[in-house]
């Protein structure tokens, strides 16, 4: 209580108790504070932001681009002219890395965000309507889980989707295919979480007030699983980047002339000993990218988890001074 010294009616005291800013802290403030307290997570965030910025403005620092061939420097190690060296064909690696990072981040972000959104709406609807709707939707979901994603990706990006390939750049095609196969696990998780939310009284209260189902799903269910959704987005981004790298590595993802980190790594594997920079540079960038996301994810989990034991250093310091005061009489 803040003002024990005023002989006010209790209601006023209580009011003060609530109004004083240090007592009621907004949930978002708590989450941000906890996140910032986790040094690893902040480092992760910094690396991720730096990489994103690099992928957009990095191209301005060199005169080369990913298509121009420099016939005087073929397969050269890093030098003043080509910061990271050139490929076997004489293309600047720095320019390719910038481009590849951008494509990888783009794929990761789009797939991560959109798949979680699909999962949220799909999962919440399943849980809310239940019964037959739930059964049919669950069947579709299970069918998609059982479909061999690798094969479909291979067919869509190389053989079968000839028409599609003509109209769409390969990275967009990959995004679509990844999207189709990435949301099911999250949707199932969200379904079970919403089902337990459905048992909560505020959903019942809304039903008894006669609020239409669509409104209940959108206004009551989706926001309440928000923290899970945010966690799932960072996890989804990592997964999508890794999937892109993996698919491109085995040659069924992004197709040349589009560049991505996976393509770069895939091309360089056979020449690790002759052109080591071609292999290690994109690999390091990929590690930085996924590693930073993983570091962030850990911090986010801690920040959102209400039972987290993370408590501030400042508070501990305060406790220590109190103890010290007690010891000195």
């Amino acid at each position, binding site marked *: 209580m803040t003002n024990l*010294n005023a002989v006010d009616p209790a209601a006023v005291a209580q009011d003060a108790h609530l109004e004083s800013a240090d007592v009621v802290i907004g949930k978002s403030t708590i989450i941000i504070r906890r996140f910032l307290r986790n040094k690893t997570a902040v480092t992760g965030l910094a690396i991720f932001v730096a990489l994103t910025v690099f992928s957009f403005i990095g191209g301005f620092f060199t005169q080369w681009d990913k298509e121009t061939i420099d016939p005087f420097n073929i397969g050269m190690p890093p030098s003043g002219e080509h910061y990271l060296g050139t490929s076997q064909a004489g293309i600047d690696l720095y320019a390719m890395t910038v481009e590849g990072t951008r494509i990888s981040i783009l794929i990761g972000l789009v797939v991560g965000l959109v798949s979680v959104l699909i999962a949220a709406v799909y999962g919440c609807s399943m849980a809310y309507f239940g019964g037959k709707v739930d059964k049919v939707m669950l069947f579709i979901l299970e069918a998609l889980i059982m479909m061999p994603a690798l094969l479909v990706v291979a067919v869509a990006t190389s053989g079968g989707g000839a028409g599609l390939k003509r109209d769409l750049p390969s990275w967009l095609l990959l995004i679509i295919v990844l999207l189709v196969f990435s949301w099911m696990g999250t949707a199932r998780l969200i379904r079970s979480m919403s089902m337990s939310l459905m048992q909560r009284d505020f959903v019942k209260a809304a039903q008894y007030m006669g609020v239409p189902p669509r409104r209940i799903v959108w206004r009551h269910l989706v926001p309440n699983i928000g923290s899970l959704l945010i966690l799932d987005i960072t996890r989804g981004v990592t997964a999508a980047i890794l999937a892109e790298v993996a698919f491109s590595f085995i040659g069924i993802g992004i197709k040349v002339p589009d560049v991505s980190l996976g393509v770069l790594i895939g091309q360089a594997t056979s020449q690790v000993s002759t052109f080591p920079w071609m292999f290690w540079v994109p690999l390091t960038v990929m590690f930085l990218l996924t590693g930073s996301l993983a570091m962030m994810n850990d911090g986010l989990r801690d920040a959102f988890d209400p039972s987290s034991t993370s408590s501030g250093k400042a508070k501990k310091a305060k406790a220590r001074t109190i103890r010290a005061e007690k010891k000195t009489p």
Partner: protein
Amino acid sequence: MSSETTTGATDPSQSTVERLHVAGLHAPGDAVLSVRDLNVRFNTENGVVHAVRGIDFDLLPGRTLGIVGESGSGKSVTSLAIMGLLAPTAEVTGSVRLKGRELLGLSDKAMCEYRGNELAMVFQDPLSSLTPVFTVGTQIIEALTIHNPTMSKKAKEARAVELLAMVGIPSPKDRLKAFPHEFSGGMRQRVMIAIAIANNPRVLIADEPTTALDVTIQAQVLEVLHKAQEETGAAVVMITHDLGVVAGMADDIMVMYAGKPVETGAVDHIYYNPRMPYTMGLLGAVPRVDVAEKSSLVPIEGMPPNLLQAPTGCSFAPRCPLASDACLDGEPALAPVADDGLHRAACIKSDSLGGTVDVHDVFAAPPVPVSRFDAIPRAERATVLQLTDVRKHFPLTRGALIKRRIGTVKAVDGLSFDIREGECFSIVGESGSGKTTTLLEIMEFHPDQDGEVVIGGLSNKQAADAKTKGKMRRELQMVFQDPTGALDPRFTVYEVLAEPLQNAGMDRAAIKKRIMELMKLVGLQPDHVNRFPNQFSGGQRQRIGIARALAVNPKLVVLDEPVSALDVSVQAGVINLLDQLRAELGLSYLLVAHDLSVVRHISNRVAVMYLGKIVEIGAVDRVFDNPRHPYTRALLSAIPVPDPHLERTRERIILQGDLPSPLQAPKGCNFATRCPVFAALPPAKQEKCLTLEPLLEAAAPSAAVQVLQQAPVPVPDQQFACFYPDGEIDEDMLVVHEPADHLAP
């Protein structure tokens, strides 16, 4: 043995050394547990919370100490600190000595030596304190094995059977192999007690052991605890918020507020001669089940202080009606009260509070509200809700592929009652008796239901279209049990209250106006509408829930355990509010509650349900003062009353066993399996109970009364379903504690 709860002076200006000197560093030689200057601090986002601030007490063998207080007063933290079960982030200082050995500062491993052996604990929630994947026997034997590695398997099993028998579990040998889910809540709590007393503990800590249980089961469990204490001679620390529960059990009471004991003493002193306004308020806030008098309850306004800052004055002063400037000058220490050396209170005015001071004068209790309907006879008032022969049967099926129907659960079985304008009708009964299903049936309001529900003239049989349903929703609204769960944590109060209004198609300006009205109506500040529910206290949240229910101006409000999740002092405020709203707005209530004292306080009529049927119905005073059905009698006798003398001498009917599963409902009278009257009947009469189903009938006044009154006596508003009302009670089910159990201090 005399009461020996020494509690040291806790003047903050003194140093720890001085304080300990006053409190007596060394406990009396025979104390099993002595706590000195126990302090617990937690690091939170807001800073360091000083949850427990200097507790001293000594516990002698065989004695019971009751720790009473609101939630957040530090009761549970104290018990967990003694057990060494607090999270490592908590900082515990002081001294806890068990038979002279220091417990604080021991490693977790070293503490294991004591926990479950000499120091045992019974937790609040029996549903989650047993491991679901092990049998009950395994879990008891585990407790034995850890502390007696040399015991043979056979001996351990024999001991487990003995323990189960001691806590009153029938056929203990077979039940050893049962899993926790095969037991009811009360049975599981008995198992917990069996595990706790397995190694003959010297100290047994019971943290709200009966809060999660029904009253009849609560009476059984308290009885078991009492027996366990007698068998083991253990000292018991009983933590509770319910002043009734400890009145009969405890020898000494410690009232806690804001992490500090504010009044300690023998049980009689605390209950009959409280010297601290907080204790007085707590006692005045509890409705009594045995008193018909209608007076408003005493609410303690405000909420407990948060313990981030050290209080500079009396921590209760902001809520205390007697507070003066002197109260703010330093926190008062526990000081002996004039009447008895062992009765201590932390209040500078304690000397003037003794004797005849009435709590209603100290705390301003509002006047009793009078409804405009109160004057009109019931028969002339309009009916707002009528249920005719409502049934809800659930088929019970077995089999994975082909579902066979193996029985029917009759959750609600032929329920008929009506509610008139301005009336509060309550349904009481144990959990599983069908109270909640009845509410759900009313709220569902669907033409396919079995039986007719008429709400404000609209029948469920004609409720096919959404329009009728919408109209009905405007007549009927609901207040939920858990105020936290019933409000979407992501909505501001404005959004919460706007939802039903938007749904009713009101425009923006009208909604805003109505919300401001509602906030004032339920006693909240209108400028709080932009806050989130988690910024309010429990009582305020329940007020928001009530405001939401009243938003569309309904005639009938369904209240599902509206105060059971609230603290006693807050509960009083909400009950007063409900009473006042009923009078001012002419509302009718349908109240479901397990707390019969609340029911008695607020309602006009009451129905007692057992296994989906009403066994007794009538005017509340009539039913409570003159219960005819044996189940009602048992229910009423099981409720603890905050009056130690009465508690000790009262006859209790302890029902055997739990509510039978509705599957095995008997053919005749549902209650025959547990009935104390049935058990005492001669076999010839028992036959009637087993074969015929008693109907709900009004008791015609007997011929003798008719003659005596020399005029036809009007039939009282009371109906019951029993062939042998007021019958003799079987002696095995009657329990009276001999006064010798408790030496008057």
